[in-house]
């Protein structure tokens, strides 16, 4: 499911551009790079960070390691045990949290300007000196195990898990981000420390900061916080992998009234020259808006679902064009047929000039809305760096969407979309499949 969020995260970044945002590229004395948007209208500071390399790199048998680390580094660090660490956070109104995705371990921090020294000090401790005390390990392991047990009966999770196993059998992308009860039980404090040592390094760290802090103040805070990290992380490489294209339908039996269906096939990478034409095509097919074809056919006309959408998920070593829908067990077959038919219609006939125009005005017109909060902006700064989009991307982005032609869109859907390649995973008790 984390992967799922990752997919959205990537998408959320793409429709961007900003005239109002002035990004400064900082490089500190100790070699830390960060992008900063100063905003002195409210006395708060928001930081977003990402260490590259996530759960996909978890060792065999230790699946869930990245997630376990993310859940435990703020549970005691330096001289502070868990209660002291959390108490300092709470009494200074500092929020600090970490999470692991398939390709990164990310964190976010928000604090009042007056508490910035304490906030950055806690962040320093978490990243440099996490304790992994036995007490904290046991407690967090119990929490993760509880979540895993609950996920074992959650149709959304069951579908997502099976979906990635179907698409990437044997590949690290099929690993469960949170691990399994058995693998999490086998993870030791030494494993966690080794993870931190391998992964938390300057060349592996991406930072975005927004708020009431000047560039020079921030540089000094960043040096104190991250300056002692090793300069280089242990390298890694994953094999490139195309999603499987068997076009099959697999069912995860689960007793619930509504089936959750995930579907997908090969997509394209973020740096693919056809990314924007595909992005526009996806908007027409099933992207965020209520005006999409899948929304119209599945929900508006037939009342088959409350929620249906499609998305592009460009990963580092693969790519996916996927979608998700939930429908009553009795109506799964009909829903699958419509999804396939829409996939086919898009592949064969492409989009109309009007659809293209409407997609462009939505995608370009809504760009400002992405800047609604400091949190959102800090996240964007990190994503732009992770995907190597360049610091001027926000000024380019609407131009990239505007430049998409009907011919490009119709070529890319023809190249990529194939209803026979679609892999479907259904979690529930579907009838008549």
């Amino acid at each position, binding site marked *: 499911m984390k992967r799922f969020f990752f997919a959205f995260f990537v998408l959320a970044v793409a429709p961007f551009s900003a005239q*109002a945002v002035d990004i400064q590229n900082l490089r500190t004395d100790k070699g830390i790079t960060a992008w900063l948007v100063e*905003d002195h*209208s*409210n*006395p*708060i500071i*928001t930081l977003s960070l990402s260490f590259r390399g996530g759960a996909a790199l978890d060792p065999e048998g230790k699946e869930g390691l990245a997630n376990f680390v993310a859940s435990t580094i703020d549970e005691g660090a330096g001289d502070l045990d*868990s*209660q002291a660490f*959390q108490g300092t956070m*709470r*009494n200074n*109104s500092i929020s600090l949290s970490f999470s692991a995705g398939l390709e990164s371990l990310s964190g976010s921090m*928000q604090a009042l300007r007056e508490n910035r020294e304490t906030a950055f000090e806690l962040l320093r401790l978490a990243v440099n000196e996490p304790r992994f005390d036995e*007490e904290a390990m046991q*407690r967090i392991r*119990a*929490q993760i*195990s*509880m979540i895993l*047990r*609950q996920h*074992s*009966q959650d149709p959304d999770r069951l579908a997502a898990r099976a979906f990635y196993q179907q698409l990437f059998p044997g590949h690290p992308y099929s690993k469960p981000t949170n691990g399994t009860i058995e693998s999490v039980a086998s993870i030791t404090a030494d494993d966690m420390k080794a993870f931190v040592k391998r992964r938390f390094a300057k060349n592996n760290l991406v930072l975005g900061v927004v708020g009431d802090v000047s560039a020079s103040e921030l540089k000094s805070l960043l040096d104190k916080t991250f300056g002692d990290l090793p300069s280089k992380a242990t390298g890694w490489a994953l094999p490139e992998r195309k999603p499987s294209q068997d076009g099959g339908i697999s069912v995860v039996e689960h*007793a*619930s*009234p*509504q089936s*959750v269906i995930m579907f997908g096939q090969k997509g394209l990478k973020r740096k693919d020259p056809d990314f924007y034409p595909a992005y526009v095509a996806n908007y027409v097919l099933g992207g965020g*808006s*209520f*005006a999409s074809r899948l929304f*119209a056919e599945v*929900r*508006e*006309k*037939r*009342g*088959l*679902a*409350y*929620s249906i*959408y499609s998305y592009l998920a460009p990963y580092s070593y693969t790519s996916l064009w996927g979608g998700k829908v*939930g429908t*009553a067990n009795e109506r799964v077959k009909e829903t699958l047929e419509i999804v396939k038919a829409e996939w086919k219609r898009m592949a064969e006939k492409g989009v109309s000039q009007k659809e293209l125009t*409407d997609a462009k*005005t*939505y*995608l*370009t*017109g*809504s*760009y*400002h*809305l992405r*800047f*609604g*909060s*400091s*949190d959102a902006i800090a996240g964007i700064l990190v994503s732009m760096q992770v995907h190597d989009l360049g610091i001027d991307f926000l000024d380019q982005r609407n131009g990239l969407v505007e430049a998409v032609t009907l011919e490009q869109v119709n070529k890319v859907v023809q190249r990529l979309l194939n209803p026979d390649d679609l892999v479907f995973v259904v979690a529930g008790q579907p009838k008549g499949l």
Partner: protein
Amino acid sequence: MHRRLSFFIAVLTFWAASQAQAGVFDPQTVTLKNGMQVVVVSNHRAPIVSHMVWYKVGSADEPEGKSGLAHFFEHLMFKGTKAYPDGAFSKIVARNGGQENAFTSYDFTAYYQNVAKDRLSLVMKLEADRMRNLTLTKEVIEPERLVILEERRSRVGNNPAALLGEQVNASFFVNHPYRNPIVGWAHEVEALSLKDLTDFYDRWYAPNNAILVVAGDITPEELKPLAEKYYGTIPANPDLNGRVRAQEPPHYAGRRIEMSDPRVRQVSFYRSYMAPSFIQAKAKEETVRVHALEVLAEIIGSGPTSRLSKALVFEGRLAVSAGASYSPDRRGPAKFTLWGSPLRGVSVDDMEKALFAEIDKLLKDGVTEQEVAEAQKRLIAEAIFARDGFSTGAQVLGSALAIGKSIEDVENWPDQIAKVTVEEVNAAARAVFNEKSSVTAVLLPDEPEKEAAR
């Protein structure tokens, strides 16, 4: 999830959290001649605005036996009018780079569009049009009924904790309409008629029952003429009756419900007590009790260093997680809830005993000066964070006004929290923990897992 999201737990928790952040929005307000209140919250960080219209009607205002009506109607607001038929509303908003949604709660229904500033008048024109001109036919409502039943399946049917939540409310509120789910009972949603829906529209959707809130890159001087042009011309509904609801009688017996379901893998325990809402307390000039309960909930149950978490999770090693919550932003009665999930191998009874030992200790020894001071500081800091999101002010003020609070109630919240004393927190605790006015709920796995959890 996507559009027309509704619902209780998510929405109300969100509002409660936001309310705890209020106090610094510095809004301006004016009332149009037809009775529609207009509120502006300026925030010029980006050239965008959030345009919201709040109707003072929610699921608790539905007639007996018509649960789900308010939410069903909310879905229909996207269907079409004479001027903008066949889903044109959403298409036009999207084409103009806008993002929109709507939500229904017990006490209100709200619609919003986030757009670039120069598209504000367009969405005002569209929103004003659908306040009175909706075209409702059988052909329009039938597919949407299926959509809503799918929504119910996905939010409730597929989720045992949500199913138990419905049972808890039905048991907790003996007579008040909060006993019915916002999305409605499936059999009643299936039976709602076109007439039910049009009657509901005619009664409640009128400018004198609505609040316009616009937040973002806008000034009152810019907004007022637009509000008069688009909303000011809609006639008020002279037959708008007050919101008369069945009231909750005193409770004389605590209730305990258990639900087991084969899909449950983690036991959960909840105890909810009847507590005053802000609106109830205001009527009796007792809002200090509400603020004292907010401080109490913060002390005993918010975060890993709160009393319950310390006692049950850290020291007692009995629970995976534990806490307390209280959301006073309602017209009718509110709930103060204690909850915990026992560690595997710990019986729910043992955890429950430890939880109430902690409450007994609280009642005997009271809270400390330091605990109150720290809780106040944390709550008040939230008001500063609330100014960050460009639409937060609109959400907080809109929901507050829609339930019957005033702008001052929102703006003065940090001051009121700062005034709370140790004695007031202790008095509030003594009043609220009354077992006879409570429901205890336990979510259990099916046999044989159930026995292991005992």
